[in-house]
């Protein structure tokens, strides 16, 4: 069996099936939805950070732009939600295209510039001068399209798309070339890899995923403010989850989201007063003792992790 098929059958399909069944068993649908959103975002970070080495500290910029793309289309053009979600993905891609010059930077400089870019988009959207278009800082309310069931299904579709992108990257020459570029761009270009094109495609793919996630999120919550959808928490969580599991793998970010976001909610439910303290200590411990993620526990022993 080719490994792409194996990954799809044994990782992607069970995950989607579990999340498709869970709403029938578990009552807290918002929590499940957030799990799906973070799975998408963590895999999006995986696409850009795991395969190209660019740390997108302002990843939430695409997410928020997607949410507002959805909102504007629904508010001003009364578009059906499905089309609005597609446009949200497009908005993410367009923002990604606008920010492609940032890929000239490397390392920390890229992370800083990306963070600045996401904050710039936030302040642009939240500007009271644009109240006619984005409702400025006063938030949007999209009660007309409110439909959590369909929004959840759409989120699962986006998750399936994201996972298939990662499976493709993991099993194709394209993904291999990207990882070569990550390790050493000069050697890769000497070996005939078109470095710029590769990076831009991975960048736009992760922007598309985040834009779609933003659109679905806007559909699900239907009332939100700029500070909600551009909250730095999304970038930080997505990056932490992806890193905790281990990037450049398919399972890594999934494990990261399930364990860390699970713990996050467990602490939130049981001992909310120690919540940030416990979580902060946990992340510090992980960074100190497992910098390459949970999957490194297996890879260190020579086991292959897809």
């Amino acid at each position: 069996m080719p490994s792409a098929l194996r990954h799809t059958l044994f990782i992607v399909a069970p995950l989607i099936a579990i999340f498709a069944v869970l709403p029938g068993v578990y009552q807290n649908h918002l929590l499940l939805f957030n799990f799906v959103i973070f799975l998408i975002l963590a895999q999006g970070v995986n696409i850009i950070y795991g395969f190209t080495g660019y740390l997108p500290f302002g990843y939430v910029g695409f997410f928020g732009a997607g949410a507002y793309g959805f909102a504007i289309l629904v508010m001003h053009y009364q578009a059906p939600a499905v089309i609005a979600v597609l446009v949200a993905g497009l908005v993410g891609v367009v923002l990604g295209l606008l920010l492609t010059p940032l890929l000239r930077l490397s390392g920390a400089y890229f992370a800083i510039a990306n963070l600045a870019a996401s904050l710039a988009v936030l302040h642009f959207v939240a500007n009271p001068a644009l109240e006619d278009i984005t409702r400025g800082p006063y938030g949007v309310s999209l009660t007309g399209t409110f439909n959590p069931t369909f929004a959840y299904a759409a989120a699962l579709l986006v998750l399936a798309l994201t996972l298939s992108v990662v499976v493709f990257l993991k099993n194709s020459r394209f993904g291999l070339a990207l990882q070569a570029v990550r390790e050493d761009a000069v050697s890769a270009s000497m070996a005939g890899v078109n470095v710029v094109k590769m990076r831009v495609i991975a960048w736009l793919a992760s922007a598309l995923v985040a834009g779609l996630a933003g659109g679905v999120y806007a559909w699900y919550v239907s009332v939100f403010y700029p500070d909600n959808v551009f909250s730095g928490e999304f970038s930080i969580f997505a990056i932490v989850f992806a890193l905790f599991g281990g990037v450049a793998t398919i399972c890594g970010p999934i494990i990261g989201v399930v364990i860390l976001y699970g713990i996050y909610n467990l602490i939130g439910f049981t001992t909310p007063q120690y919540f940030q303290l416990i979580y902060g200590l946990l992340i510090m411990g992980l960074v100190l003792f497992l910098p390459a993620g949970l999957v490194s526990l297996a890879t260190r022993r020579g086991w292959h992790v897809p």
Partner: protein
Amino acid sequence: MFGSVTPAFGADATVTSFAIVVLGSLGNPLGTALGGIVYGVCYMLVQTYLSSWADLLPYVLLIFILLLRPSGLLGRRVRVA
């Protein structure tokens, strides 16, 4: 806003001062002073003529300086590609 203290107090100032340090050039005190002056003058100009866009300024300055001269205004020219 005045007269209230919260744990998240000053997060905006952190981002702004970080933008100024990068604008001047990291590790160069003179650059930081210059960056501060550039930022302050630009901020006041934007606030006078386009007041609602003033919050956008530090981020836009940061992106532009990182794209045009990643080492900052007074930094030595190093290739960071």
